[in-house]
């Protein structure tokens, strides 16, 4: 008995330390835990800093694209220039090209300067150069749409050229134009005078969100709208094809397929496909859809098909995961009251898995929306997004670009004004991606059930 220690006595510690006083080893362990926490905090801080820098850069460089400089001019629509015979025949009016309209804007600009009493040594040609090349096109479109107004004087808001716009946005300064043949100091003096006069101002540019791409001669007129429609058409194709195919494939694999080596191989391959670089799907699309099936070049339908291939594995994997998370007791209960296998799946399992499936689909779509690489190979990059489609079929078949492809295209062009638009385009694209992800999160929060 004597070798049994007295339970009331404290347990003898060989190192003689108390619980309240830390010994060296505990201190080291605690210190290393503290260091680990610090590493984690530093890592997160770096990540946040990067994110903030990215957001700051995008927003500071891109917001300029949402504003544009306009000048207000009253243009007399001279009958002798626009409709020589005076019979208001639309076919004859259309024969006057934009080159025929340019003198009208020039004269209007000259009249404006004379009327507001601004003194300048500039020739009328140099004054009119401050206007965008788009002005003549805008005027012609207006006259073709309203031939009755020929002979009257109409007030227009014209875009100014990208250098003037850059001057108002601080991109172009009096120092930087020393070697620039597109604008000179006298023209900037005139711009200053017009600003003081109130007829030249920077305002919201809706055309950037709704408009079509523009050529290198007039970056100020370029917009994202048509490329956006191209992206929507592609998303439609992806949704219509990838969702039913993906869900059907996952239901079969998860609920019906026998477990054997064939299904194992299929499973492994689906996981592998999800990791295949998207450019590979682009080459596949070029070879199969365009060269073999003779679908048209640059069509959003082809883009959509390629992105469907890319999105399918993502959708299948997330659908299978959400089917798996439905507890077997639900299936057993359905089967127990006499439902067939199919009834148990479609009446009970699928509705419970639906939020997860939708979330996976939306995330897959968001991924596809931001994809550029495969579009390079099927001809969706270039000066393409210039014709707004008139119907859904045309939207699918007529050549079009997509938002990320349009951004890439703008970033390549020579004029610095396009660079600003590329950043602006990134803002639009990010708004779409963030809202899609937000919808996915909301759906999951709202409908997901946990067991």
């Amino acid at each position, binding site marked *: 008995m004597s070798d049994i220690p007295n339970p009331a006595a404290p347990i003898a510690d060989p190192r003689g330390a108390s619980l309240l006083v830390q010994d060296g080893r505990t201190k080291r362990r605690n210190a290393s835990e503290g260091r680990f926490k610090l590493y984690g905090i530093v890592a997160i801080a770096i990540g946040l800093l990067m994110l903030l820098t990215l957001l700051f850069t995008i927003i500071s460089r891109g917001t300029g694209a949402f504003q544009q400089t306009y000048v207000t001019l009253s243009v007399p629509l001279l009958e002798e220039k626009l409709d020589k015979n005076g019979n208001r025949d639309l076919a004859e009016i*259309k024969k006057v*090209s*934009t*080159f025929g309209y340019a003198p009208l804007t020039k004269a209007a600009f000259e009249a404006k300067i004379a009327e507001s009493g601004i003194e300048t040594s500039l020739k009328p040609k140099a004054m009119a150069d401050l206007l965008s*090349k788009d002005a003549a*096109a805008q005027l*012609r*479109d207006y006259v073709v749409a309203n031939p009755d107004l020929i002979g009257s004087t109409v007030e227009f808001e014209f875009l100014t050229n990208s250098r003037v716009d850059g001057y108002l946005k601080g991109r*172009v300064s009096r120092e*930087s*134009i*020393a*070697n*620039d*043949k*597109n604008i000179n100091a006298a023209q900037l003096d005139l711009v200053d005078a017009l600003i003081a006069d109130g007829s030249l101002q920077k305002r919201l540019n809706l055309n950037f969100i709704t408009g079509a791409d*523009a*050529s*290198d*001669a*007039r970056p100020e007129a370029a917009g994202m709208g048509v490329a956006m429609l191209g992206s929507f058409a592609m998303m439609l*194709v992806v949704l*219509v*094809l990838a*969702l*039913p195919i993906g*869900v*059907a494939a996952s239901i079969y694999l998860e609920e019906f397929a026998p477990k054997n080596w064939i299904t194992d191989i299929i499973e492994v391959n689906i996981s592998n496909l999800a990791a295949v670089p998207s450019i590979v799907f682009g080459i596949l699309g070029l070879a199969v859809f*365009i060269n073999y099936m*003779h*679908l*048209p*070049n*640059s069509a959003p*339908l082809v883009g959509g098909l390629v992105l469907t291939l890319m999105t399918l594995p993502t959708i299948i994997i997330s659908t299978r995961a959400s089917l798996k998370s439905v507890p077997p007791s639900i299936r057993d209960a359905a089967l127990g009251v006499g439902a067939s296998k199919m009834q148990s799946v479609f009446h009970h399992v699928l509705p419970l898995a639906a939020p997860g499936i939708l979330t996976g689909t939306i995330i897959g779509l968001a991924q596809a929306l931001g994809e550029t690489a495969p579009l390079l190979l099927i*001809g969706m*990059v*270039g*000066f*393409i997004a*210039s*014709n707004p489609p008139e119907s*859904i*079929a*045309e939207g*699918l*078949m*007529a*050549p079009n670009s997509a938002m990320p492809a349009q951004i890439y295209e703008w*970033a*390549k*062009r*020579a*004029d*610095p004004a396009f660079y600003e638009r590329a950043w602006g385009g990134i803002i639009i694209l990010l708004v779409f991606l963030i809202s899609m992800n937000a919808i996915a999160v909301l759906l999951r929060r709202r409908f997901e059930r946990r067991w």
Partner: protein
Amino acid sequence: MSLAKLTTSALAIAAVSATAAAARDQVQVAGSSTVLPYASIVAEAFGENFDFPTPVVESGGSSAGLKRFCEGVGENTIDVANASRQIKEAEVAACAENGVTDIIEVRIGYDGIVFASDINGNSFEFTPTDWYKALSAKVVVDGEVAENPYTTWDQVNPDFPAQPIQAFIPGTKHGTREVFEEKVILAGCEATGDFETFLEAAEGDKKAAEKECISLRSDGKSVDIDGDYTETLARIESNQDGIGVFGLAFYENNTDKLQVATMGGVEPTTESIASGDYPVSRPLFFYVKKAHIGVIPGLKEYAEFFVADEVAGPDGPLAEYGLVSDPELAETQSVVTDETVMGGGS
């Protein structure tokens, strides 16, 4: 069964689109990224002034464009290929093999190739010899063919500052590269007399000697840029010692970031290029598939509009953007109007 509904609607859309695929109503253009800005300016104005839809212009490089052009005749092939060099015989043969026999060659004007460096860096006055000595893989030193020993510009030409050699030149898929090799490197090779040495070494084989001249060093002093001029510009902005090869139009749009070097004592401007004083310029072309005229609406009108005086003439929007207009434009216009195909009689 919403699933079944979705599938049927998918099939319906596919069916609708299949019928829409039967007719293409816009001109499709692809090719040189140098011609792209001009082609897009024309396409935009064409779409505005005619009742045809705006043509679609893709880039990708002259060779890539001509390859697609030669893929065959039919609505899923392109109608027009832009090129910053003339079509090669091998490409004409490849075209013919695929049934593209009648090709209309249209020269739209000239473009200068300029050498530019960062605006805050040193300025240069080059001759082709300098570039050959700086960039060729092998040069003749003291009568012996040797690996290029030069690392700074002052070794190449004592008038230059001691700035490390760092050149950003267009990659091999660009038409600009060929002009650069032929009009700068080869010209320099011949001017230094190195060509004779190479010719002797190659035992009178001219082709081999030329190849020897234009093979560029691969030790990182000369960097091929496969992308566009914006990439070259970005490289120069991050490396002040860099000197890049640009198109004249691109330089003129970025004069706040770049300074241009003279070549052979001539400053590149549209005037000096038009007069032929500036040595490094090249014609720009587009090629039209005659078989598509009358099938694709607007194709001939587009080609005619492209070379019309008010577009490609000296006061037109193309010249304003940087194209050096062709003094023989009237001839080109008649080629397009008469649909004269390449190779004379055929």
